[in-house]
């Protein structure tokens, strides 16, 4: 039930930074024209894009009393960890961490296994129904998740899945699948078939060749793809909100939003909590960027 929109957004663009991330592109020598104005524009973009994140950090470390005043300085004047303390000590934080960790880990592993099998079939074989399958993989991503919320809820309920980790895991795994298949397929078809063929000549079976030859080569692809499923699973709100009614089974996003619906939002600890939830995601995003770049330069993944 992770929103197809976000998944798609992350996925499609996901490999794009590969070409771009940090100056792998040479500066164009012909641009002698004042780059100053472009730099200025760049700084403006930087400020606009970074300010909300900056303000989140500053507010997270700011004492409660200063947060509630009209004299908040743009620069951090005093630091405190009280926002983080109250976030961590608030009810159900640790149980939510546990739920999110369990659900995310299992989902990512399961989704990658399933997706690899399917992607391998699609990328390496031509079989009847292949094209419709590809189209289905695209189309299901366009369904508004909301349209399926109630029936999914009823189905899970009938199967005794309410408040159960596996309910979220199953739905998240499957919703990660179309993108993962699509993306992995892109990596698989870019690995020269000859490599496998020579392995098969050396006595490997079809699947043996896949595991020994293709699998290591698409490592970066798997890393990237898994981060996108990870991010989506980690962030999903709506299904978790409906299925996990037991406070002790909340996921982190549900826990985060419960802080705002309670009496009087404490923005200091809300921002601290936001930092805690966003941090792993941002770190993974940064890591995957590198992997993608190295994958690209090593030539394992190319056009």
């Amino acid at each position, binding site marked *: 039930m992770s929103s197809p929109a976000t998944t798609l957004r992350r996925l499609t663009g996901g490999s794009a930074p590969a070409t771009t991330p940090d100056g792998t592109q040479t500066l164009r020598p012909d641009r002698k024209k004042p780059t100053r104005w472009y730099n200025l524009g760049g700084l403006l973009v930087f400020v606009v894009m970074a300010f909300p994140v900056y303000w989140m950090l500053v507010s997270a470390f700011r004492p409660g009393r200063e947060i509630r005043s009209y004299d908040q300085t743009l620069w951090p004047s005093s630091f405190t960890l009280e926002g983080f303390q109250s976030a961590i000590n608030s009810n159900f934080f640790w149980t939510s961490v546990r739920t999110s960790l369990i659900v995310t880990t299992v989902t990512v592993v399961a989704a990658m296994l399933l997706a690899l099998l399917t992607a391998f079939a699609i990328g390496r074989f031509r079989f009847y129904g292949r094209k419709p399958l590809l189209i289905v993989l695209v189309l299901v991503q366009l369904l508004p998740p909301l349209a399926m919320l109630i029936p999914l809820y009823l189905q899970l309920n009938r199967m005794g899945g*309410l408040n159960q980790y596996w309910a979220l895991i199953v739905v998240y795994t499957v919703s990660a699948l179309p993108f993962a298949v699509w993306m992995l397929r892109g990596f698989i078809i870019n690995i020269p078939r000859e490599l496998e063929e020579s392995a098969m000549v050396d006595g490997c079976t079809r699947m043996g060749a896949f595991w020994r030859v293709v699998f290591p080569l698409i490592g970066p692809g798997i890393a990237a793809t898994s981060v996108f499923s990870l991010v989506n699973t980690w962030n999903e709100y709506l299904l978790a909100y*409906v299925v996990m009614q037991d406070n002790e089974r909340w996921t982190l996003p549900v826990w985060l939003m*419960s802080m705002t619906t309670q009496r009087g939002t404490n923005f200091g600890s809300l921002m601290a909590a936001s930092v805690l939830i966003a941090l792993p995601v941002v770190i993974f995003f940064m890591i995957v960027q590198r992997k993608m770049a190295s994958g690209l330069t090593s030539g394992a993944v190319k056009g």
Partner: protein
Amino acid sequence: MNRKLMAAIGAVTLLGVTACGSDSGGGGSAVAAEDRDETLTVWLMGEADSTWPELVTEVNDKFAETYPGVTVNVQYQQWGDKTTKLDAALGGSEFPDVVELGNTETMTYILNGVLAEIDPEQYDNSDTWIGGLVDTCSFEGAMYCVPYYAGSRVAVYNADMFEAATGSAEFPQTEDELLEAMTALDEEFGEGQAYSPMYLAGRNWHAAMSYVVGHGGQIAEFDEDSGEWSGTLSTPEAQAGIQHYIDLVKEWNRGDQTKDEEDHALAMAQERAALIYGNGWEAGVVVHGAEGNPDLEGTIQVAGMPGPNGEPLPSFIGGSDLAIVEKSDVQDLAAEWIAMFTSEESMEVLVGKDTLPNNTKQLEPLKENPTTAPMANAVPDAWFTPIAPGWSAVEQQSVLPNMLLEVLRGTPVEEATATADAAIDDLINNEA
């Protein structure tokens, strides 16, 4: 009351219920108390967690003495989405056995046969339960929930600020005096900051409807002939009340006027408001709440709120009920837990938190105590939301807050009330 309709629905649902053969008690009687090993799931609202958590622990410990093998699983819910979650849960296999319902929410669930009948005899002081709460639990002569606590709305004010501005820490008796005090407060403290002499939230429909009642209006009316409820907010009285309220919001609230009353105690704790209109126990929240301001110890007082025409402002009688879900397999355990949670001793704990108990026996002494008297005294004149089949839908769809926002946004009150009446007419007679 639409008796025919309700009777018909009641008959259908009750038949359905009995036909389904729920043997309440779940065979529990055959097993000794110490051998019971079921799980009892209780949904309470967040107040229990934030304001009287020790009562929950105490009751659970006591319950465990009788039923050592039973696991009590208390879940805290939020008002904003409780009914949505409850609706979903009731369709599933993971539903609560005991659920706290706001007293305006009970009727839909009773009419749909969701709640089990209770036996008042089983509970302390049931002969003196507050009438307004009993009404919300009764249908066709039977009771379907247990009154938990009552809440009337009072003026919560900062006495020091009033003294500094008006020279008297006494709270004004009439609205005219109140408005004079507001002007004085504004002059004294209003300079240069977002200071609200009176912090009334634009979406606070309980407060707004108090003004409607004060002007002689009401939200909806039951017509004996047609057997139907219909919205009456378009009457001149109701419109006058709504306009009166919005004028007060616009004039004296210098914060976010479109908020609900959720964080008005916070505004007071931060000394940005001299007066709020809320539950009596919010005086305690201002000082001792998680976000409270201990420096205000002793300065936050409660008083009766003056209303239109020189009369006191009629208070909404809010409160909560505890109900047993009909589908529950452990109805007897649920009843026993509720009995402990609403016992006379438990009510003493609530009283200690400036909350009104569920019975008049314990309410009477509060009228003598200066801090609780304004709340206790507001109970007799209190008004209540229409006890109509579809009232909870009117609430769930935020018809009244949306109407107030419209007026705040500049829509003429005639237009906004007409829209609201149409929405109410649409919903109020439907039971599900």
